């Protein structure tokens, strides 16, 4: 019945228009589907074609940070196994701090003396606070078994790695505009809790102080330092990452064969398998845009 009306359109009939007003359009049913149906639909408008090499190079940031965390865990195990004493730990702290400042000075464009003094003041304040608190950390988890502490630490570190902001840094350079995201904050806190848990297992208070300082230095500032390096020169970033990876692998090899294999396979997985995978699943990408999308505002909303 209705379909017949659709079928034999006489030439005098008005054309169907894509309008809602004026009641039912003469000669057309309400379920009439015109040729113009879905003509404004755009498919895969914003899809970026990715290149294998680019993705692989980008994934280096992740491998690099994984290596940094592995190094921290190695230092933890060595300290717990008493193969590093507190003095060498303190030496490590001091040299890391110096090295970090050196890199920041080298890479940032506008680091004035005033800002540097501000940094030094804040860090000395931080170190003093940590020193005062270290007896508390020392006895913090005495009533909990070491196994639980290890299990908790491992899960926190995994959480930290999952939620870490690999493209930026949670601790910002002063004056940075964007705020860190919630997940990166959670990640940072997980790493701090993990280091405090480990610190409560070491033999002396000075140990506690040294190891907490070391962990916090790395977890708080290593992303910032690597971020600055990356911004300064991408080539430097790549060579630094490669060096870091080989150093970590060497240490892991010395400590435990299994750890070495695990780390190596993880690194291969991140830098080779995952990029391949991403490129493979790209072809299934199906994005639909059209007039029904919520309009995006072309200006920033300042609350």
């Amino acid at each position, binding site marked *: 019945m*209705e379909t017949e009306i659709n079928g034999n359109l006489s030439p005098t009939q008005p054309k169907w228009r*894509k*309008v*809602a*007003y*004026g*009641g*039912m359009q003469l000669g057309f*049913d*309400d*379920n009439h*589907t015109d040729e113009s*149906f*879905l003509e*404004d*639909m755009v498919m895969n408008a914003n899809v970026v074609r990715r290149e294998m090499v680019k993705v692989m190079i980008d994934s280096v940031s992740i491998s690099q940070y994984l290596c940094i965390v592995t190094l921290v865990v190695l230092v933890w195990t060595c300290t717990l196994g008493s193969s590093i004493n507190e003095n060498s730990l303190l030496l490590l702290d001091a040299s890391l701090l110096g090295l970090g400042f050196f890199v920041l000075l080298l890479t940032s464009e506008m680091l004035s003396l005033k800002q540097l003094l501000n940094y030094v003041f804040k860090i000395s304040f931080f170190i003093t606070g940590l020193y005062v608190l270290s007896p508390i950390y020392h006895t913090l988890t005495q009533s909990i078994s070491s196994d639980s502490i290890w299990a908790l630490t491992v899960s926190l570190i995994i959480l930290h790695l999952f939620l870490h902001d690999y493209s930026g840094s949670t601790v910002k350079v002063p004056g940075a505009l964007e705020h860190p995201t919630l997940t990166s904050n959670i990640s940072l806190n997980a790493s701090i809790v993990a280091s405090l848990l480990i610190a409560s297992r070491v033999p002396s208070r000075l140990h506690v102080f040294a190891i907490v300082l070391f962990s916090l230095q790395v977890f708080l500032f290593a992303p910032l330092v690597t971020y600055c390096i990356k911004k300064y020169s991408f080539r430097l970033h790549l060579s630094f990452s490669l060096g870091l990876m080989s150093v970590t692998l060497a240490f892991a090899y010395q400590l435990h064969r299994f750890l070495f294999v695990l780390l190596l396979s993880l690194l291969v997985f991140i830098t080779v398998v995952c990029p391949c995978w991403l490129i493979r699943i790209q072809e299934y990408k199906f*994005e*639909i*845009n*059209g*007039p*029904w*999308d*919520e*309009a*995006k*505002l*072309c*200006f920033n*909303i300042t*609350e």
Partner: protein
Amino acid sequence: MSNMGERLKHRILMVSDFFYPNFGGVESHIYYLSQCLLKLGHKVVVLTHAYEKRSGVRYMTGGLKVYYLPWKPFLMQNTLPTFYGTLPIIRTILIREKISLVHGHQAFSTLCHEALMHARTMGYKVVFTDHSLYGFADAGSIHMNKVLQFTLADVSQAICVSHTSKENTVLRSGLPPEKVFVIPNAVDTAMFKPAPERLSTDEIVIVVISRLVYRKGADLLVEVIPEVCRKYPNVRFVVGGDGPKRVRLEEMREKHSLQDRVEMLGAVPHAKVQSFLISGHIFLNSSLTEAFCIAILEAASCGLLTVSTRVGGVPEVLPDDMVVLAKPDPIDMVQAIQKAISMLPKIDPQDMHLRMKKLYSWHDVAKRTEIVYDRALRCSNQSLLERLSRYLTCGAWAGKLFCLVMIIDFLFWHLLQLFKPAADIEVVPDFILPHCQHGEKSRHFNE
């Protein structure tokens, strides 16, 4: 069917979480459609959830019976999705009222989805009206689209309020386009009349009525209003509506010292919208997404020239000479307002109102919906297995899950039939209201 020749009298159950005392596009659509269907001689019953103390059965104008289920809303006026919790009561209502067809409204409404599912299980023909647009990108809409796919997989016919909405619904649900009808909203032109006397154009008043939220483009208003006020010293804004973005608008007013030129009235009760509208010359709609936008119709019916963002179904709503459209960006909006101000002398509100009367009427909507009902009833009956195969095509995992949900619903239904046979449920006698109170129509709804 034996009585194909004469017009079928349907017994329709309208289901949605959104109904009076709430106000909005969906609510008024259901109300006016029901009223007009009643006049056409059909029986209409509305099913919604309880609104605060309003629970149980109520009668509205024209003998419209409303069931307020004793189910409390939990989020944004939606009932908690329970899947099977509503089956017994919906079954009882369907049998008591001798319903022949179930018509669900709005994709957000959980009650609507559940009712349609139960109705299909019990073998009723169902029609679904989609009143909203949805994107495809974010996690929320992906899940919502799956739910819609579930409901629409087995729906007899679907209705959308605009052609854009139809495209959207077809994409989201995978329904064949010929099963989806476009029947727009309408406006009660008797209620939205222009001012009896033409307003003077010495001072131009731009009216905004919307909830002040992000999706309605409140942030656009913050950018547009100061710019327009700067360009035209004789323009005044009146903003009606409340919401989280009201603070931003008030801040803007302070910052640009526009206290005497931008009036913020807060939420406007529905009954006062008309008197509010007729105080202005231009109606400004800044929505970022809109399937249809009844507010534009109301403004046009009051004789206001509309300036709106070109989003969703808005371009289909009015002829080009009754509306000025702009991209949702402040510069373009300001230009559109400029154009509208220059068009103002040529606009005659009374003439516009008369045109709107011809363009939109709820009776027309009801007649067109009637056709959809007839079609739905002509659809063939399908066995459970046939229907399950349709659900199975909805997705690798989702398809199986949907099937499971439907099978359990089917089992529950049979269990209910065992415990409470349909013969034991008392049927409500119909009563015909004398057709003399038409003048009183919509009075109750407006209060």
